[in-house]
């Protein structure tokens, strides 16, 4: 029997060990134990979430590739496929923020490359503890993302940043990459063809990152900083060369498949690649693996998480063609094994067999963990009557705009190259980013969203909100929502209330994605985001969404464009302030439930918006989200460099003034419209059964609600732009 210390080291439970011995009918040797340990880690095996994840919708007309591959893919028109995925790098970023974030970006890029696609955009969804205390995390992560993305020449076009106490020890770093490939050139990482060669390309293999996947599957504790060697170091220059070489590679038919080496390194990439083909196996000779450190054991080689490496399955006899391509880019490539039909991964060290494991035991053998969820105490309810009335909406607006969760993100995104590629039509800072597809009129809209405060108050409803808000952001550019990639960040699921959150989160995602007809084609789950049993994060299901506009000439942006345009609120407001930024900032409380969400209504409002955009009736559009209508209105002014003049807002009872200004009812947009387009828009809105109401008129350099408040654009800008300067 293996000792328990050794089991803990590879993060396996005694029960799991028993299953292994039973299936193998012998105890595994040390190398095999290590390989099973990483592949059975939560990070690789999804053993806790797997059965729940099956509830997510993943099919649709446009879907070319759903979950199970390196990334998902959907058809977007004109023969193009968009390939995309989001992935977490939370644990490494907590310990070593710069490299953790940088290698997170590097890893997700390789997932997209493996599908044969050229990466065209990156987005990053980030959560930290409040500044300035969490400055170390914040600075390191932002610099790491820029350091990698800027160097490799892929624009970082969007994302989000939130601050909350619950992330103080457990920052969230989710990176999303989007790529383009011709539909008929889409690749899949399947190890087809017995006798075909396995080539390892890119960086040499070192001792870095061993047990990274296992480390990501436990809670952080005092000893976590000793895990620093489990965090890898990124080399964006090498990955840039790897990227270009893989693009050249995709042009030849010498290649059967390309697979990224990420978590669990060679072990997982070979096993996954073979696991996708029934009956396939593989032989790997570790002595053939190019190394950058001396004295590495077979165990080290199989578990190393050295970055910037790819596994390529090559038609037998055509290895030299592949080698030549990599030579052009001064990259190493080596044949390290071949594809077999024995259903086993056999690892050699020259002639000696050092490990032999059934592929399905590696990829699918981890016993699913069936946990029980228990709903925690509901959060404090909110009694609107007990809130003092809103006294000065202007002053509240300034404080909200200056709050770290709502203020301008320019200090961050101006550190990222968001223009390389000559395709960025709508840059960061608005709702969704929009990129053109060169050679067509197509535009691709991209966003990530999640209001984790809502998820904390109600994980099911909160997850629905994340999907609905992402869809609104896409719609606000004039594009129709197409598909989703999700990254579920939660705490330790062994605690019943966290498992309950996981169940509820997935249920909410599934419901909203079905209602809004956006399948989830790829994703990632990151659990154990808590430290030493305390300070668990809010459930944070980040929704990455893409959408398409057929002709980008019809695209919309946030900022007001013309003096004298009518400014309208599309959709109606509920008398609710639950979970709002206003409650947090102005009343120092997080309470109530997230605003009610009617998904049918959302879909109707979105349809109206898209019809109006296509008909050219709208001059600008912005979704009302965190901070409510007035914050959205101020953003339209700030980004357009133009004020707005409105008559006093006198909501009809029971709608309170604070809820009208700062409530976060979904299904609402601020739009500006030329006066002559008003009748048509009104007709269209009636036909879609959506309420629109006139707020005021764009123009001037103040934001004014007559008799209620008046602020200059400069005042507003000062508040908004200074929010992150600590």
């Amino acid at each position: 029997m293996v000792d328990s210390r050794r089991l803990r080291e590879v993060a396996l439970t005694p029960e799991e060990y028993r299953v292994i011995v039973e299936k193998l009918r012998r105890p595994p040797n040390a190398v095999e134990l290590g390989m099973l340990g990483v592949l059975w880690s939560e990070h690789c095996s999804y053993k806790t979430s797997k059965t729940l994840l099956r509830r997510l919708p993943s099919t649709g007309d446009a879907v070319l590739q759903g979950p199970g591959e390196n990334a998902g893919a959907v058809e977007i028109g004109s023969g193009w496929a968009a390939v995309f995925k989001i992935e977490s790098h939370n644990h490494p970023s907590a310990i070593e923020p710069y490299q953790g974030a940088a290698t997170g970006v590097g890893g997700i890029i390789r997932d997209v490359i493996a599908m044969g696609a050229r990466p065209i955009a990156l987005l990053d969804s980030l959560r930290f503890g409040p500044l300035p205390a969490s400055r170390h995390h914040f600075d390191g992560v932002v610099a790491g993302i820029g350091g990698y993305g800027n160097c490799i020449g892929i624009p970082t076009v969007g994302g989000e940043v939130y601050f909350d106490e619950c992330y103080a020890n457990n920052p969230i770093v989710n990176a999303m990459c989007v790529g383009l490939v011709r539909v008929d050139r889409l690749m899949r990482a399947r190890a087809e063809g017995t006798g075909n060669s396995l080539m390892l390309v890119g960086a040499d293999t070192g001792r870095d990152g061993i047990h990274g996947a296992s480390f990501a599957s436990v809670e952080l504790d005092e000893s976590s900083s000793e895990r620093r060697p489990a965090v890898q170091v990124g080399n964006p220059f090498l990955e840039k060369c790897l990227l270009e070489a893989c693009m050249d590679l995709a042009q030849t038919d010498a290649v059967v498949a390309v697979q990224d080496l990420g978590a669990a390194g060679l072990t997982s990439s070979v096993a996954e690649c073979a696991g996708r083909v029934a009956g396939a196996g593989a032989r790997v000779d570790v002595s053939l693996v190019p190394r950058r450190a001396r004295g590495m054991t077979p165990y080290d080689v199989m578990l190393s998480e050295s970055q910037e490496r790819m596994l390529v399955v090559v038609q037998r006899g055509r290895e030299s063609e592949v080698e030549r391509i990599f030579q052009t880019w001064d990259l190493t490539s080596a044949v390290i094994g071949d594809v077999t039909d024995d259903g086993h991964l056999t690892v050699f060290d020259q002639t000696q067999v050092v490990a032999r494991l059934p592929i399905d035991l590696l990829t699918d053998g981890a016993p699913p963990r069936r946990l029980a969820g228990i709903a925690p105490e509901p959060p404090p309810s909110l009694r609107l009557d007990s809130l003092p009335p809103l006294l000065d909406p202007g002053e509240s607006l300034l404080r909200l705009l200056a709050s770290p969760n709502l203020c301008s993100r320019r200090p961050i995104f101006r550190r990222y190259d968001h223009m390389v590629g000559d395709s960025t039509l709508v840059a960061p800072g608005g709702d969704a980013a929009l990129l053109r597809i060169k050679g067509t009129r197509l535009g691709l809209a991209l966003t990530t969203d999640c209001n984790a405060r809502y998820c904390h108050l109600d994980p099911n409803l909160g997850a629905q909100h994340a999907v609905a808000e992402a869809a609104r952001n896409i719609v606000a550019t004039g594009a129709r929502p197409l598909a989703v990639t999700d990254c579920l960040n939660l705490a330790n699921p062994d605690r019943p209330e966290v498992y309950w959150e996981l169940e509820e989160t997935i249920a909410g995602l599934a419901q909203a994605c079905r209602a809004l007809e956006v399948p989830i084609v790829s994703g990632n789950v990151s659990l154990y985001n808590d430290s030493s049993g305390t300070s668990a994060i809010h459930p944070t299901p980040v929704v990455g969404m893409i959408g398409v506009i057929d002709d980008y000439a019809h695209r919309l942006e946030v900022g007001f464009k013309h003096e004298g345009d009518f400014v309208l609120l599309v959709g109606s407001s509920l008398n609710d302030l639950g979970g709002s930024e206003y409650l947090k900032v102005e009343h120092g409380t997080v309470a109530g439930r997230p605003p009610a969400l009617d998904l049918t209504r959302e879909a109707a409002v979105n349809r109206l918006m898209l019809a109006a955009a296509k008909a050219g009736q709208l001059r600008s559009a912005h979704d009302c989200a965190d901070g409510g209508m007035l914050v959205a209105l101020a953003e339209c002014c700030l980004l357009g460099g133009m004020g707005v003049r409105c008559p006093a807002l006198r909501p009809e009872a029971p709608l309170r003034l604070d809820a009208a200004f700062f409530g976060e009812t979904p299904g609402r947009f601020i739009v500006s419209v030329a006066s002559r387009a008003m009748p048509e828009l009104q007709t269209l809105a009636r036909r879609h059964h959506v309420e629109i109401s006139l707020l005021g008129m764009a123009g001037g350099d103040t934001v004014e609600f007559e008799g209620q408040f008046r602020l200059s654009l400069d005042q507003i800008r000062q508040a908004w732009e200074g929010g992150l300067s600590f």
Partner: protein
Amino acid sequence: MKFGVVVFPGTWSDRDCGWVIDQVVGAQLQYLWHKDADLKGSDCVILPGGFAYGDYLRTGAIARFAPVMQEIGEFADRGGLVWGICNGFQILCEAGLLPGALIRNASLEYRCEWTHLAVERTDLAFTSQCAEREVIRVPISHGEGSYFADPAVLSRLEQSGQVVFRYCDSGGRVVPGANPNGSLHNIAGIVNKRGNVLGMMPHPERCAEPELGGADGLKLFRSVAGGALKVLVS
């Protein structure tokens, strides 16, 4: 007019420059591989943006030794047009084809944003389609774009009118607030004495079509392309 766009490992503006030359301007385009000491009969050689060889040591420090750079040096000596953009500017300084150096931004941070440039020379092959003292809007994207030179070099540059672009505000005023990186004298781009080697940190290839937020960069590409036409006609 034949443009040659140099590709080092780590270059990323090659495809953007290529797009503008080929698809927007409609001139002839060829890519020049760093290992090939052959300019393939290019009339204008562009050294585009990126991180050649990763720029780990110092920007441009390795790239200057590439086989293609020897050819570019000789080409420049013969009066050929050489245009360094961003990383290309850094490489030209390292290679000694332009004076001075580009150092870390004063903010110590990468900057990707729109800037205004005052065009101070319009008699060059690169700027002939700009108006006198025209203000153009061109984005930057760099971490090490602060132009530096010793006082003697700086005064020589100024006296012989070698400063081509200066960061300015939208009204054309060259003020400290418009300087995104701490460049001495707000310098964004310079030319050699002979006027055939231009280095600039901003990216004209990112603003050659209105849908990308501005098309001022097109003037520079058209200047070069049109200049060759003039030569052909005369």
